[in-house]
C-alpha cells in the first residue's frame, strides 16, 4: 500500500540521471556518441568533438616534430622527426577523406624518400653540428622575425573571423568521401590527367640519369 511513491521517485531519479548524462554527451542519427559536451553552457559545448580531438593530436604531433626537426644538431634525429611529421600528415589526410594521398604519403615520403635521405646521411658519416645557441647570430634573429611576420600575414589572409572569404568552408564537401578513393583518383589520373602523368615519367627518367651522372662523376 505504502509502496506506491517508490517507483515515482525511481522514475524521477532515472530521468534526472539521464538528463544529467545528456548534458555531457550528444548522439548522431545512428545513436553513436558524437561529441562529449562540456558541462558548461552551450557556447563552449561543441569544443570537444571527437574529430577535433583527432585533429588537435595530429596537428600537435606534426607541428612539434617539425620544430624538433629544425632544432636537432644530429642529422639522423632530424630525419627521424621528419618521418614522424610525415606520418602525422598522413593521418591528417585521412581526416580529410583522402585515402590515396595518405597511403602514398607513407609509401613514397616516409618510405622511399626518407630512406634515401637517411642512407646518404649514414654514407657521409656527418658529425653533429655545433648547437644553435653557440652559433646564433643577428641574421638568425632577423630571419626568425621576418618568418614570424610572414606567418602573421598568412594567418591574417586566411581570416580567422567569420565573414572572411573562407567562411563558406565550415565543413567538408559531401563529395569528399568519394573523390579520395583510389578508384576515383585512378580514373581521373588516367583520363583527364594522362598527359601530365606521362610527362612525369620523363621527369623521373631525367632525374634518374641526372642523379647517376652527378653522383658518379669526379669533378677536377
Amino acid at each position, binding site marked *: 500500500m505504502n509502496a506506491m511513491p517508490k517507483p515515482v521517485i525511481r522514475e524521477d531519479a532515472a530521468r534526472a540521471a539521464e538528463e544529467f548524462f545528456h548534458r555531457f554527451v550528444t548522439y548522431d542519427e545512428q545513436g553513436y556518441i558524437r561529441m562529449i559536451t562540456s558541462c558548461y553552457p552551450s557556447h563552449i559545448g561543441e569544443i570537444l568533438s571527437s574529430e*577535433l580531438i583527432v*585533429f588537435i593530436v595530429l*596537428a600537435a604531433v*606534426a*607541428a612539434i616534430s*617539425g*620544430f624538433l*626537426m*629544425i632544432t636537432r644538431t644530429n*642529422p639522423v634525429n*632530424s*630525419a627521424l622527426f621528419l618521418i614522424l611529421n610525415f606520418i602525422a*600528415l598522413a593521418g*591528417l*589526410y585521412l581526416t*580529410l*577523406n*583522402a585515402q590515396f*594521398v595518405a597511403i*602514398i*604519403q607513407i609509401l613514397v*615520403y616516409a618510405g622511399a*624518400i626518407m630512406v*634515401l*635521405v637517411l642512407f*646518404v646521411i649514414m*654514407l*657521409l658519416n*656527418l658529425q653533429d653540428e655545433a648547437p644553435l645557441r653557440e652559433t646564433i647570430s643577428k641574421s*638568425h634573429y632577423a*630571419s626568425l622575425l621576418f*618568418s*614570424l611576420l*610572414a*606567418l602573421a600575414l598568412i*594567418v591574417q589572409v*586566411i581570416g*580567422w573571423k567569420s565573414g572572411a572569404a*573562407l567562411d563558406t*568552408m*565550415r*565543413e*567538408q*564537401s*559531401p*563529395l*569528399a568521401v568519394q*573523390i579520395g578513393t583510389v578508384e576515383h*583518383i585512378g580514373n581521373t*589520373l588516367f583520363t583527364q*590527367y594522362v598527359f601530365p602523368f606521362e610527362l*612525369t615519367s620523363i*621527369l623521373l627518367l631525367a*632525374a634518374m640519369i*641526372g*642523379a647517376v651522372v*652527378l*653522383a658518379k662523376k*669526379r*669533378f677536377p
Partner: protein
Amino acid sequence: MIPVHYYLILSAVMFITGVVGVLTRRNAIIIFMCIELMLNSVNLTFVAFSSYLGNEAGQMFVFFVMAVAAAEAAVGLAIVLALFRNKQTVNINEVNILKW
C-alpha cells in the same frame, strides 16, 4: 566539422617552420629536409581545399608534387654526395664558388 581554417593555419605554421630551418641551418641535408617539409605543408593545403571544395584537382596536384619531390630528392642527394666528395663538407658556408 572542423573549419578549413585549422588546416590552413597548421599548413602555414609548418611552412614557416621550414622557412626558418632553411634560413638558420647550415647543413645541406637538413636544408633539403626543410624543403621537403615546405612541400608537404603545401600538399596539406591542396588536400584540404580538395576535400572542402569537393574537387579532385587538388589531390591530382599532390600526386604530381610527390613525383617532383621524388625527382628532387634523387638529384639533390646526388648533388650533396658530389659536394661532399669534392669539399669534404656539407656546410653551405664553406661552399662559396658561386658567391659574388
